[in-house]
């Protein structure tokens, strides 16, 4: 695989007894890419993501981040090495404020967590960083709001903002726009991509069902089916192939509709 790959898997297989969730998946993500992972439910997306983020040890094969093996290292070490993950289901710290939530990540990033008696409040640099991150996501007006009182959309933004505050080199977004109304989806994706650039994130991995977003924002699409990589190509090439689109999007775009890409021309 390529030497410039930031994150890569080589021949990863994950089996649970007889059930094979991933069957020889190889992919690589280099700096500057936004790779979308798509596929029907049960195709192995979640398993792949869990392997990529060090939660699961593959039964066979290698998973590397920045050249180092990360099989099963767990979320804490992963965050320290520079990969962040935001979830589909919103995770918040209910009683902490927006500012405090983002501060948790900043403290981690700056390796300050063992400062047991240092004053948090007086650390101006820290709170400035918190404000900066919040501003990117439009949350700077809500810094003192308690997380549990935010709207669903704001909670989502906060979840992602806190992941960005880790200043990760790679960020993995797990259905970042799920539960968001279609009008807002594009706005959120734009904010995310923008924030990623400003935060210095080098690559984005995106698990998404909404093919419009995938078409518009990804530089490469990896399609999974039945634990195997069905396709790994740029959006143009992806959507030009009706069989692949059908396999991913579902039977409604069947063999009868050859050449018809369900209006998803980029």
């Amino acid at each position, binding site marked *: 695989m390529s030497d410039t790959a930031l994150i890569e898997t080589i021949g990863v297989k994950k089996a649970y007894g007889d059930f094979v969730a991933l069957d020889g998946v190889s992919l690589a993500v280099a700096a500057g890419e936004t790779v979308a992972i798509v596929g029907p439910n049960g195709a192995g997306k979640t398993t792949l993501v869990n392997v990529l983020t060090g939660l699961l040890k593959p039964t066979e094969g290698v998973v590397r981040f920045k050249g180092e093996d990360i099989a099963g290292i767990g979320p804490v070490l992963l965050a320290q090495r520079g990969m962040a993950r935001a979830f589909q289901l919103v995770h918040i710290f209910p009683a902490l404020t927006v500012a405090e939530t983002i501060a948790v990540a900043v403290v981690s990033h700056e390796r*300050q967590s063992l400062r047991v008696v240092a004053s948090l409040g007086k650390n101006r640099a820290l709170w400035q960083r918190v404000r900066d991150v919040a501003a990117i996501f439009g949350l700077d007006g809500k810094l003192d709001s308690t997380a549990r009182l935010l709207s669903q959309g704001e909670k989502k933004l906060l979840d992602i903002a*806190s992941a960005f505050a880790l200043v990760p080199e790679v960020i993995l977004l797990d259905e970042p726009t799920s539960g968001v109304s279609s009008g807002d989806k594009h706005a959120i994706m734009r904010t995310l991509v923008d924030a990623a650039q400003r935060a210095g994130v080098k690559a984005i991995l995106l698990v998404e069902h909404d093919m419009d977003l995938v078409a518009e924002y990804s530089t490469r699409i990896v399609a999974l089916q039945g634990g195997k990589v069905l396709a790994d190509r740029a959006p143009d090439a992806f959507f030009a192939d009706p069989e692949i689109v059908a396999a991913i999007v579902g039977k409604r775009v069947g063999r009868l509709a050859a050449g018809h890409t369900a209006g998803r021309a980029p």
Partner: protein
Amino acid sequence: MKDAPGRVLLVGVAIVVVALAAFPKVASPYYTTLVLPAFGYAIALLGFNLLFGFTGLLSFGHALFVAIGAYSAAVLTGKLGVKSFEAIVLVAGIVAVIAALPVALLAVRYVRIFFGILTLAFGMLFHSFLFKFYNLTGGDTGMRVLRPTLFGTDFKELDKTTFLIGPYYYECLALLVVLAFAMWRIVHSPFGLHLAAIRENPRKAEYLGVRVHRFRLLAFLISAFYGAVGGAILGVNIGQADPELAYWTHSGELVFMTVLGGFASFFGPLLGAFTFIFLKSELMGATEYWRFFLGVTLAVIVIAFPRGLMGLASDAWTKAVRR
């Protein structure tokens, strides 16, 4: 973030400290002697609540460390001839931290109810050790704790009560203020923020790089230190280290006091310690069935006032400020 104590808070704390300092001068010796265990419990609870209120781990074995504190005081004064109170307090704390290490390593792998049961088990393990090994620990009669020296000064000329409500009282008050200040700094530090994150959502905390297991362990060790310091104060006060200090119901009382005062507040456990000591004393004087009424009090708090006295106070304050 509300860490820089507001002016109001500082003034309030100052008033309380001054009031406590003046207390022995204005109140009867009986009530003053009640404040001493309250000091001990207040310190022990500061540690307990770091684990419970701030990190979200309910230990039903915190009395283990209180007992270690008292027995350390007994061994140091009685068997090893070490009379310096300052040394006693420090050594008790260190012994507790060392004892806490294996307990914590095992217990922080669990959360919630399992953590509570495990800590209960360890507390009872220590209790049975104290109770049964008569030759080492004095069995059910316990061990005597001799009067220590305060900053090298031996107050031989004072009788026990005068010593306790005099110089000893003031040193314990000072110790409480110092340790409370240290705990305030801990809670409002980056470490404290990570502990709060662990309490709120351990999984998300992991993804934000918070070392959940390690920090729970650290919080446990700090709480052990505080517990033992409180226990040493109690031991000197009573003059005896008793195995019942380690019994699980004593751990239950520690939880009771914390929830009574308010576990979600920094000062709650302190208020809880003082209130509980006085409440228990009054009840014991009033009826043979004081345990029943203590139980009813706890039930009422749990059902109706879960945020405890500080919660009530803060609600009242909010209402007053709104006008």
